[in-house]
Structure formats: structure tokens, C-alpha cells
């Protein structure tokens, strides 16, 4: 049965789009049929991170307004045949996205895919509300930083009250994905550590993505990090998280810095 997952955070810039692309690709690599949906109307970026920016013809709003059929708007990834993108529109009219329109599209996507990953815009306004509205599960992306943790708490409250599931008295299963984690800084007490964040947010941990240049490198070339360099630390962390979403038991690894002796002596950071 299809699962609708929202990738959300409240705060911007914490890694929602990167995570949506990486997890979507990782699930597709495991043979699942996946669509990633960009809800960031006006500021679409999922197409860019996936390297599909020049293939966008129709978008989410076109489908909502009946200008295009869903099949016309879906873009199939060139590298992974199981991965599809439904891009956001660049229109300024955010009100073009309606509750009924999104409901219809999600219902149709449910008949075609195993996983529907909704990339939420930042904030708590209409776009973010609609991205989470029809979700079965939620991934809350947080950084080890006070404003991100506070916004995550706010979003968790909204998931528990403003979603269709919550209104029916059911629950949206929530997963916490901690991104941009720097083990060394956390161990020096310069950064909130995993235990602190888990205790404060009281939400099960899906994965820990290390702060890494590999993430930027992958987005530079328009490839999900799990595809671009499957052996990199963030790629392995995302793949593990995807397997946990599939229900597999995968031991949680706190990403360690891979430092050679010379690097240590020279005080260089592992790239």
C-alpha cells in the first residue's frame, strides 16, 4: 500500500530538499516506486537538486488547475527508472494550491506509487500545511541548533493537530532526521548532541546525517547524494534511514570522522 510521507522542518535551510532527494533515490534504488513532490510553490528547488530543472514542462499547480494531466507533469529520473518528480510551480500565486486539489493529486499518486515524498516549504503557512495535510508519516529534519529544534517542536505539534489523520483521531507516525551533525563539535559540547535533541523532541530517530562536503558536491551536479557517491558518509546515512523507513532494523551509527594520522597531526578535517 502506498505511503505518503512529508519531509518538513519549520525552519528553512536545514536540509529538507536534500533529504527528500536522497531518501527518494535510496528507496528507488531498493526497488520501490517513488515520486518526490515539490510543495515549495514559487521557490522550487527539488528539480535542481535532482538535475531535472531543464525537463520541467508542467507542474503541480497545472495539474491542480486541470491544465495538465498528472502523467504529463511527472518527470522520470534518467538514472533511476523507479524515481519520479512532480515539480512545483514558479507562479507567485500560492493560493493556486487548494486543499481539494492536493487531496485529488495525492489520491491519484497513491494508485501509482509505493512512496509519495512531499518536500515541504519552510515556515508554517499554507504551503507547509498542505504538504503535511495528507501525510501518513512525517520526517522532521532538524539541525543541532536551537532555532531548528524549536521549530521542529512547533511542526510536531501541527502534525498532531492539523493533518487529516490527526483530525480523524489517528496519528501521523513521526521520524526525526538530524542533519548537518558534527560529531566532533558535539563531543566538545559546542553543539547539541543527539541525546539532547531526542530528549527535547521525544520523537524516534530515523537517522543522523553528518555535516559533509559530499552533500554540496552532489547538489552542485544535480544528483541525489545517495547516487552521486554511494560510499560517502551522508549517502550511507541516508541509505540506512531509507531502510529503516522500509521497516528494516539497521543499527544507528553516529557518523565518525574519518581522520588519518596525518590529518590528525595537521589538524585537518576529513573532507
Amino acid at each position, binding site marked *: 500500500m502506498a505511503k505518503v510521507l512529508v519531509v518538513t522542518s519549520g525552519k528553512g535551510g536545514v536540509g529538507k530538499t536534500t533529504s527528500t532527494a536522497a531518501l527518494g533515490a535510496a528507496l528507488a534504488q531498493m526497488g520501490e516506486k517513488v515520486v518526490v513532490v515539490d510543495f515549495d510553490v514559487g521557490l522550487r528547488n527539488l528539480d535542481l537538486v535532482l538535475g531535472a530543472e531543464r525537463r520541467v514542462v508542467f507542474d503541480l499547480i497545472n495539474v491542480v488547475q486541470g491544465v495538465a494531466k498528472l502523467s504529463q507533469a511527472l518527470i522520470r529520473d534518467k538514472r533511476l527508472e523507479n524515481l519520479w518528480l512532480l515539480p512545483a510551480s514558479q507562479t507567485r500565486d500560492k493560493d493556486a494550491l487548494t486543499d481539494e486539489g492536493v487531496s485529488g493529486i495525492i489520491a491519484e499518486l497513491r494508485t501509482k506509487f509505493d512512496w509519495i515524498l512531499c518536500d515541504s516549504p519552510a515556515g508554517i503557512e499554507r504551503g507547509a500545511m498542505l504538504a503535511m495535510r495528507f501525510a501518513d508519516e512525517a520526517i522532521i529534519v532538524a539541525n543541532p541548533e536551537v532555532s531548528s529544534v524549536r521549530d521542529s517542536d512547533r511542526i510536531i505539534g501541527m502534525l498532531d493537530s492539523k493533518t487529516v489523520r490527526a483530525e480523524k483521531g489517528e496519528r501521523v507516525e513521526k521520524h526525526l532526521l538530524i542533519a548537518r551533525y558534527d560529531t566532533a563539535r558535539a563531543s566538545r559540547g559546542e553543539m*547539541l548532541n543527539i541525546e539532547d535533541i531526542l530528549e527535547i523532541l521525544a520523537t524516534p530517530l530515523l537517522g543522523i546525517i553528518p555535516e559533509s562536503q559530499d552533500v554540496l558536491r552532489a547538489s552542485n551536479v544535480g544528483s541525489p547524494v545517495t547516487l552521486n557517491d554511494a560510499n560517502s558518509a551522508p549517502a550511507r546515512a541516508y541509505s540506512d534511514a531509507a531502510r529503516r523507513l522500509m521497516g528494516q532494523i539497521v543499527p544507528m551509527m553516529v557518523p565518525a570522522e574519518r581522520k588519518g594520522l596525518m590529518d590528525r597531526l595537521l589538524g585537518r578535517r576529513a573532507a
Partner: protein
Amino acid sequence: MMNLPRLFTGRTASASAPVARERLQILLAHERGLRGQPDLLELLRAEILATVSRHVMLDPEKVVVRMDRGNHVSTLEIDIEVPMAAETSRDGAPVARFG
């Protein structure tokens, strides 16, 4: 003053994470408390507006209800601006001044 625990744990003055953690715990406890009742103020505002409006003409925009929650004392602040022309009641009798 020398910080002995820091000396022993090897932590430097940059160990600010415990401060972050404590600030968040206090803040979120406060915000979660408010979350269940975001409509309380709106309800109070509507009822106060209805009550006062029975006697004085009011601009609904000029009725502000605010609550400040402290650790020991919370205050409810009600700010109603009464237009000059409305300082007589609807039935013509003078009304007490606010403020």
C-alpha cells in the same frame, strides 16, 4: 573564577551546548503549555467585545487582549480603545470612562 568541572571534563569555554539545551527545555515547556489553548485569548476577546459592545460602540480592531505567562504570576492585559463619539451608551445614558 576558575571553573573546576570544566577543568576535569576537558571542556573549554566553548561548551555552550548545555546552555542551549537548558534554554530549549524551558522555552518549549512554556510554548507547549500555550499550544493547547491558542483559542483562549480569541474567545476572551470575542466575549469581552460582545459584552462591552452592548453598552458602548467599539471598533473591534481596537480591542486587544494579551496574556503574559510568568513562572509565578501570569497577567491578562485588556486594552480597549473607546472612540470619543461613543462615550455615551447606546440608549443615551452616560457611561463610565475606561482607562
